[in-house]
Each structure stands twice: as C-alpha cells, then as structure tokens.
C-alpha cells in the first residue's frame, strides 16, 4: 500500500519500530491494521508539530530578548568597556556608569532573603506534606501560603513603607545604628516574605510524593517521626526542595517594585546591612523614563543585560548543584 497524504520521507530503519506514529510507513500500516483512519494519523502528527512549535517559540522568545538587550547595550559597552562591571560610580551627569553597587545590592538582598525564608518554606512544606496533608486546616494553610504569592508586589512595598520601616527604625535606634528604617535589611525582610510560597508549594508537592512503603519501612524499623523525615523524606526530596529554593531565589533576584520602595535608592556602596543600597531592577525602573542621553539609556539596558546574565548563571549553578548532590 502506498503511504497516505503524508509526504515526509520515511526510512527503512523505522520499519522495525512498532510505534503507532503517523510518520512511519510501518506505523501507518499497523495503525491501519488497528482500524485508525488517515485523519487520526494526521492529527497525531499535527499535535506533535504544534508542541514542537510552542517549544520553539519559547526558545526564540528568550534568545530574542537576549539579543535585543545585547544590541541596545552596544553604545554603553563601547563607551565604558568592561570596567562597567566593577565601577562604583553611577554618575549620569558626567556619563560615568558602574554597576557594582547595584550588583552587590541585588545579590545581598536576594541571598539574605533566601536565608531568612528557607527555614520557613521548608517548615511549611514538611508541615503540609507530612503532618497535615489533608483536612480543613491543611487547605486553609495551603491557600494562605499561596495567597502570599498572589498579592501584588506594590502592596508589599506599601506595607513595608507603612508598617515594616517604622519597626526597623525603632530596632535600629535600639542597636545604635542610624535610624533610617529603609535599607538592605528591610528589603531582605520583605523579599523573604514574598518568596516563601514558591519553595513551600513545590516542597509540599514533592514531600507528598514520597512513596509510603519507604516511610513505613522506616517506621517498622522503629524510627520516630523526626527520624523518618530526616533520613527518609528529606534525602528523597532533596532535588525537589532545592529546585523550589532556586525558584524562590530567581523571584527574589528580579523583584522590583517592593524593593524599590524600601531599599533607600542610593548609588553609594552599602556599608552595612542596615545601610541603604540599590538593586539593578530598582535602578532600571526608577531611571528609565527620564534617561535623556543615549549612553545613559544604553547603560541602563546594559544593567538589564547584567541582571539577565546573573540570573542565568545562578540558575545554571543551581542545576549543577542539584545534579551533583542527588541521584537524578
């Protein structure tokens, strides 16, 4: 029998595959034998091609963004060169731009936020995954945690300004640090609250997927609840938990609105954790609309490129750590 309207070339090697795939002659023959119509076979092919197209669009989008960022940063790269990365002055009047204070601010706030939020995320994940996987309380807590993620970040900024900043200011007065209230510490606190749901949700899902025989075997051997969690559940879900933490970190690195309201927005290098600083996303959001010189605009876009690359690098390192320390 001749192949159907499918014009793609077919090879001899595929005839040995018994897959019901519209693209192989043997496949179409055996599909026919099963009573599938030509239309159904074509639908299979169309479906697969649509999926491939969607995937390609994603890839093209990301590379398109990267290429646009690079192209628009070229004037700034030509004018400032590589010392943009470790320059400490951001002076739009004299056209001297250095991204180092903002790079430091971004990394400091994000990692500090991660440090503060990880105990909470893991605790919520274990609590919802192990102790209360079902029931009204579990649903309530789960929905509340997910609500934290649903609140717009501007609202966190306002809440920070109205509630958190005075509290931090009184804390700073007690410690003896200049009581300004805003700064790296305050923005790390707000970021920590915002990123809890990402690690908590993902962690809860993977902890619930630990197979019962594994846990029951440990219980049967006389392990206590804490011992089961520590030696069976957590090692099993290590990669999932770490992926959740990586997701949280990614969110923290790019967060703009909440941070820009409470970080103090100064271009000087932060001198301590309570000092004001600035992050890359916050600088771009603040200065983009009034950037009146070509080099200034290009320097801001280059800042965006640096942020993009930093996020990519951290994600790659994270994936490497996951694959190194787990068996997946």
């Amino acid at each position, binding site marked *: 029998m001749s192949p159907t309207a499918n014009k793609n070339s077919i090879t001899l090697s595929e005839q040995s595959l018994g897959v019901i795939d519209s693209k192989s002659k043997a496949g179409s023959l055996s599909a026919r034998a099963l009573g599938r119509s030509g239309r159904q076979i074509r639908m299979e092919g169309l479906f697969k091609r649509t999926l491939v197209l969607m995937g390609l669009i994603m890839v093209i989008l990301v590379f398109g963004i990267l290429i646009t960022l690079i192209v628009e940063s070229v004037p700034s790269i030509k004018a400032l060169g590589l010392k943009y990365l470790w320059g400490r002055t951001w002076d739009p009047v004299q056209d001297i731009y250095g991204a180092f204070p903002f790079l430091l601010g971004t990394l400091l706030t994000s990692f500090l936020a991660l440090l503060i939020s990880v105990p909470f995320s893991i605790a919520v994940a274990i609590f919802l995954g192990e102790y209360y996987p079902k029931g009204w309380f579990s649903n309530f807590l789960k929905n509340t945690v997910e609500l934290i993620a649903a609140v717009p970040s501007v609202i966190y900024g306002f809440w920070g300004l109205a509630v958190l900043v005075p509290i931090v200011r009184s804390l700073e007065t007690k410690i003896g640090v200049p009581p*300004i209230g805003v700064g790296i510490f305050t923005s790390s606190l707000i970021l920590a609250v915002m990123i809890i749901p990402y690690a908590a949700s993902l962690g809860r899902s993977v902890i619930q997927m630990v197979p019962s025989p594994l846990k029951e075997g440990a219980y049967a051997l006389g392990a206590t609840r804490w011992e089961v969690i520590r030696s069976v559940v957590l090692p099993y879900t290590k990669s999932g938990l770490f992926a959740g933490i990586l997701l949280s970190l990614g969110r923290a690195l790019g967060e703009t609105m909440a941070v820009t309201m409470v970080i103090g927005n100064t271009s000087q290098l932060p001198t301590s954790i309570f000092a004001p600083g600035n992050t890359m996303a916050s600088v771009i959001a603040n200065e983009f609309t009034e950037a009146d010189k070509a080099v200034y605009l290009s320097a801001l876009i280059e800042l965006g490129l640096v942020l993009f690359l930093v996020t990519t690098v951290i994600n790659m390192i994270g994936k490497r750590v996951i694959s190194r320390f787990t068996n997946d």
Partner: protein
Amino acid sequence: MKKNLFNSKFFTAAVMLSIFSFMGCGGGEGGGKTDSTAAASSSGDDNALIGAGSSFDNPLFSKMFSEYNKMNGLKVNYQSVGSGAGISQLTNKTVDFGASDAPMNGKQDSAVSAPVLHIPVTAGAVALSYNLAEVKDTLKLTPTILAEIFLGKITKWNDPKIVAANKGVKLPATGIVVAHRSDGSGTTNIFTTYLSKVNEDWSAKVGKGSSVNWPVGLGGKGTEGVAGMVKQTPGAIGYIELAYAIQNNMAYAKVQNKAGNFITPTIASVTAAANITIPPDSKISLTNTEAADGYPISGFSWVLIYKDQKYNSRSSDRAGKLLNLISWMIHDGQQYSSPLTYAPLSPAAVAVADAILKSATYDGKAILQ
C-alpha cells in the same frame, strides 16, 4: 539518514518568523520607529492634538485642556510620561507638542532635525521640607548650608552654621537624614541647577541634571516618595514640589536668595522670580534669580514645538489650532494656575512667550498675527 525535526517545514517556518521579527527590532535606537507617518500628527483628525512630557505639568494641563475643550471643542490628549520621554517623542514627531521642566540639552538639540521653540507656560518652585517636630518656627537656610547638607558635610541639625542662620531657635542634636529623588525628574534638575550655581563644591563634585550621583541620602520614588520619607523620618530634609508641600501641610524652609532676603516659597514669590530679563529664546533657569523678592529655587516649565510647523504632511489648520491653544494657555489659561498652586507667568515671561509664538511659521509664513 534519520529523519529529524530540523528537516521539517515547520522548523524552517519558525526560523523565518524569528528572522523577520529580529529585523523589525533592529531599526531605531531607543525611540522606536522614526518613520511613523501613521502618527496622528498627519492624520485627518485635526480636531484632536497630542502632547507628551512633564508629569509636573500634568494637573495644570488636565484642567487647562478640559476648559479649552468646553470653549471650542478641541480635544487635547496629554500623556504624562516625563520630560525626557516627551522630548524624544517630539524628536520622533509622534506628538504635536512636548512639555519639559528643563530646556533641551546639547545632545537632545543635536538629535532633533529642525529648530524647536521653547514656550514657557507655567512656573513652579522646589520647597525644602523638613521633619523637626520640636521646632515650631520656620527654618531659614542659606545656600551654603543647603549645599553642605546635601554634600554630607553638615550632619547634625545643631551645626553652628544652621544655628547662626536661625538665631533664637532651639535646634536639636538630631542627625540630618537627606532625602532625594531616586527617579529622574525636572524637580531634581531645578534643585541641582540651583546648587551648582551657588556652590562651587557642588558644581565640581556632583553637577546638575535630572539624575545625579547624590553623595548622601536616601532616594524616594516621585515627589510622594520623598515627601513620605521626610514625614516618616525624624530629622529628615528633602526637596519636593511646592504644590505638594502646600496641599499636604508640610513644613518647609525659607531660603536666602541672591539679594540676601530669606524668601518663603509661595506662588507670588515664584512669579516674582520670573519677573526678570528673560532671553528671547526663553531658555533660562530661574534659579538664583536676581529679583529681590523672588524665591531662588524656581523654574519654568516649557511647551516645545517645532518652529516650522510644516512637517510630516501636517495641515496649516492643525498648526493654527496648536498655536491658538498655546497662546490661550499663556494668556487666559493662566487663571487656572493659582487654584492648583502653580505660579502664573510674570508679565516679562508672557511678553517673551508671545514673541516666540509669533516666530512659528507654516510654509514660511507666520501663523499667528
């Protein structure tokens, strides 16, 4: 050879799509499409004008344009995107007029293809607001004190220099927390221009602009951000628009002007600051004004139009409507300024603005008689 997905037609189609989309984004740096002849400036709808620029002018323009619409039905669509964006939209000829708190600088001038007229339409002031709950009198600040506070040299409120300027006022030993704008802004431009004029140290170290490298202080987004910081932080001082300070009942300082008088920022003192000799192109900064009763940290806000209105197939009708609108804004429209706490133009400014408007041409002929 194993058939793989790279041979399929779909993949080729996807790659072609991506190439075309990259070609689209390759043209036009920063400002987007420059050949937008589809822009409304050449559209048939001559009964609607488009403007963009300063957010400082936005409340005043909203009121003015709605009143003008009631008078003769002309609709004006103003987008408050910031002075810099307004200038670049005018450069790209996508708007009829731009609005800016600072005259176009050298780089913007060279980017524009034809001469641009600057017409002053209103003036505003920058007030220095502070948070000292114990001090009931209005503080007096000299230019030197201001510059040194913002340079970080004066760090406490009971510094001898401040005490000397405010005899009889008990100043606490609180530390000074400086608040400035984190976003680019015309208000910053006016304030830093003033500081550059009155203090050489500032001029050398920091300079002037919509965005500068502040030596000390916290940044707040927008005037609301700075005002919020000042209200919340004891011992804070920040610069905000006068209109905002008045409407929110914030304490602000008297500043010593060039003539040596301590002037409170009010609508009257801003108008007085503008009552000086204004150059014919009106590109003057009102800071450190010569006027004896003028507030030294004031500034014009300008409407920008092309001198030759015949471009991009604009009709003479449209040009006429635009010029009539601006002419109304500087004469009858000024009645709406004071209720909104903007300073009306001084007689000297109106005279210069009139002369500039008369120099606008269409096809070589003056539009306004």
